[in-house]
């Protein structure tokens, strides 16, 4: 119940922000751009340890100040050389550019982001792959980032976001013999800091609108 409440409040807040921006910003010259890119992600500040991931994303820009980022990635974490924790994320974020003048040809374009994703987590014992557990869940994320505009169409993006999983947690008992990995019945606010380097190219405009 608690997680649905948090998720609903978060999404209402998110949509309110986007709507407010859409109403106050008349400059849509950059809206409609469809970008495609790849990303590498480092997962840190988690009970499980740190790991790296590979993925990709596309963006659809809604206005000069608001963009959307649709992503998927696969992250593998080594837990004390005993358990592999794998995350599959599919989700979306709303990107908001707070500085109107910091756009291409300016090199640095900072932004704020918030969004939601579905995530699947699987933990497997190194020694005995039959010892494993998995769960499917939902998560919310928020953070900051910056585009480095290399050309008018190509950017390198560095961002850091904290992702909170609103779901059951998997818990390995690595000292037990044999090892036990179980899904906790209680849901918890567990998360990790995801730092991503992404590369994006604006392919084409889905729509053309100059207001």
């Amino acid at each position, binding site marked *: 119940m608690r997680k649905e409440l948090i998720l609903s409040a978060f999404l209402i807040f998110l949509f309110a922000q986007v709507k407010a921006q859409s109403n106050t910003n008349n400059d849509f010259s950059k809206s409609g751009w469809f970008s495609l890119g*790849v990303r590498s992600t480092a997962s840190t500040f988690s009970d499980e340890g740190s790991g*790296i991931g590979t993925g990709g994303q596309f963006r659809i820009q809604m206005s000069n100040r608001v963009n959307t980022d649709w992503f998927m990635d696969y992250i*593998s*974490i080594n837990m004390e050389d005993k358990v592999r924790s794998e995350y599959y994320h599919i989700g979306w974020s709303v990107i908001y550019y707070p500085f109107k003048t910091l756009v291409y040809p300016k090199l640095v374009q900072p932004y704020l982001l918030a969004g939601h994703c579905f995530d699947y987590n699987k933990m497997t014992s190194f020694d005995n792959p039959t010892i494993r557990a998995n769960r499917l869940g939902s998560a919310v994320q928020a953070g900051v980032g910056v585009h480095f505009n290399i050309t008018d169409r190509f950017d390198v993006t560095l961002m850091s976001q904290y992702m909170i999983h609103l779901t059951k947690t998997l818990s390995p008992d690595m000292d037990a013999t044999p090892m036990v990995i179980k899904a906790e019945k209680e849901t918890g606010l567990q998360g990790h800091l995801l730092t991503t*380097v992404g590369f994006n190219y604006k392919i084409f405009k889905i729509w053309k609108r100059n207001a």
Partner: protein
Amino acid sequence: METKRLIIILFVFFAAIPENARSQNEIIKAGLIRTQATISFSDMLNSGNSYFYLHGNMEAYFNSKISFCGDAYAYMGALNGVSDFAYNHNIFFGFLYHLTQKQNDTYLGFQPGMAFTRLNENKFLLTHSQAGINPEFSLVLGNNYYINPYFHFFVQGRLIVGSHNYNVHQNLSEFRFSAGLGFNINTLK
């Protein structure tokens, strides 16, 4: 001996072709597609082992500065000692940024990728080693020299970061070096 002679003849032949492109600088532009296949040598930064791979790639230029490139490496064996891996195949994909001057093309890039790995059971005394998929990323630095509209020479260095998380944890950090003759064609006028 015959193979060596053939390589020398091909090298002299392609280097000697007097193409219009030499003076027009029309090769490196939007629509250029290049591909290559070569043997790549590596040095594992953690274990010191050296491996070699069949390395193939294909790259498409959006303009003279930006291209999208996909690389594949097929593991072929160890150059020294007993290999840690039964195999360590890889794919990488990402954008490259080019600094071009006439036919010379120096580039750098960042490519995320995946390693498809399985440990050598004899080395680690395993009854069964699992096949694994591991996320990786790589930093790429290289140079292409376009000798005409169809061929180029290339050198490339790649730093790979990743880890194998199946059976026994293994660091996959590695430096790879590739060089050879590649093929290119301009698909746009």
